[in-house]
């Protein structure tokens, strides 16, 4: 009975929302803010990827908040799972393909991860996407050899410095008399690899932080055994 009521409720909610959403003008968004950003972003930030301008420029503080959320989640997971990692042979060794494939893929994944981070202001991609690929590169050997360990100290140093350099870049603008997180050093080289001023630096910080954070979280989850 309770199940039926909740099903009916969820279905009704869905239909009500659908009725309301169908009143929206689909395919022709108002573009009030979006349109204004599209026309000014290339001049103001110097990045051809306008999503990057929004993520790091116009809504840069959102990105800072989101990095903090990842950091908070990793810290909280660390608190919950504790520091003890005993990877006694509960997980089986990876097979031939996984072991050697993982080893072979590692440099490729690193390259493509950094490529995506460095071209975030020009092409689709950026710090988050690249960071996830970096994390995957470090996680693959862990799957292949469960006994192997990630260097957690190293990871936390990377994530700390990456996160604080994001803020330092923002504060540098503040100390120059501009607003916090204001893009600086915007050169007139739209579309070049070295363009968009501080944005690629911010994306590098984002990428390293996301990579370190996710790798830490994954290895925490993979290596957790019972507490006692």
């Amino acid at each position, binding site marked *: 009975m309770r199940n039926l009521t909740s099903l009916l409720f969820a279905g009704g909610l869905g239909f009500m929302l659908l009725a309301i959403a169908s009143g929206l003008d689909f395919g022709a968004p108002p573009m009030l803010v979006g349109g204004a950003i599209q026309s000014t972003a290339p001049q103001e930030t110097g990045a051809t990827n306008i999503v990057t301008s929004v993520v790091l420029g116009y809504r840069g503080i*959102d990105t800072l908040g989101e990095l903090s959320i990842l950091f908070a989640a990793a810290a909280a997971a660390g608190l919950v799972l504790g520091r003890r990692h005993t990877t006694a042979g509960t997980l089986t060794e990876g097979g031939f393909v996984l072991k050697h494939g993982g080893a072979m893929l590692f440099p490729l994944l690193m390259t493509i991860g950094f490529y995506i981070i460095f071209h975030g202001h020009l092409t689709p991609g950026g710090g988050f996407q690249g960071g996830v690929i970096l994390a995957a590169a470090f996680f693959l050997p862990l799957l292949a050899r469960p006994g192997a360990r990630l260097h957690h100290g190293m990871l936390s140093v990377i994530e700390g410095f990456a996160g604080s350099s994001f803020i330092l870049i923002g504060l540098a603008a503040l100390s120059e008399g501009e607003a916090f997180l204001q893009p600086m050093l915007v050169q007139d080289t739209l579309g070049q690899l070295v363009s968009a001023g501080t944005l690629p630096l911010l994306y590098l910080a984002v990428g390293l932080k996301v990579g370190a954070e996710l790798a830490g979280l994954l290895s925490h989850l993979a290596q957790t055994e019972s507490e006692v």
Partner: protein
Amino acid sequence: MMPEISLELILYTTALGLISIGLAGVVLSRHLFRMVLALVIAEAGANLMLVLAGYRWDAVAPILTTLGEHPPMVDPVPQAMVLTAIVIGVGIQALAVSILIRIRQRYGTLDRSQVAERMDAEIADTAGIPRDVSQESPLGERPLPSLPDSTVEIRGGHS
């Protein structure tokens, strides 16, 4: 009066359907891990809804490929927001899973009502009061059904 089936209808139905399925899943599941998974589904629906907010017919991705004139582009703001929302979701899910691992180790179960019952018992115990009768268990004494062997074995491992 069959409404015309348009792309718009399909997309909105998908997004809102995912949200409804997810919310129903959270309410109906008896297993905590499934509740977390249902939440992931609902979140996907909300993110899709956000992406749809910026969609434009016949428009390209908001990346400049040529200087000067460019074709109409979709709204970049929702895309940036979805990126943010997805990463937030990932963080919360990872945290949820790590907490679930600990609960499984301590309580030996992830069944929603059993976990709730044990939690109530533990709270009452630490406070030092006789237990409240929980909503989900009937009044009066009733022998608990015996646990399956596998559960007992795992529970033997903790504390």
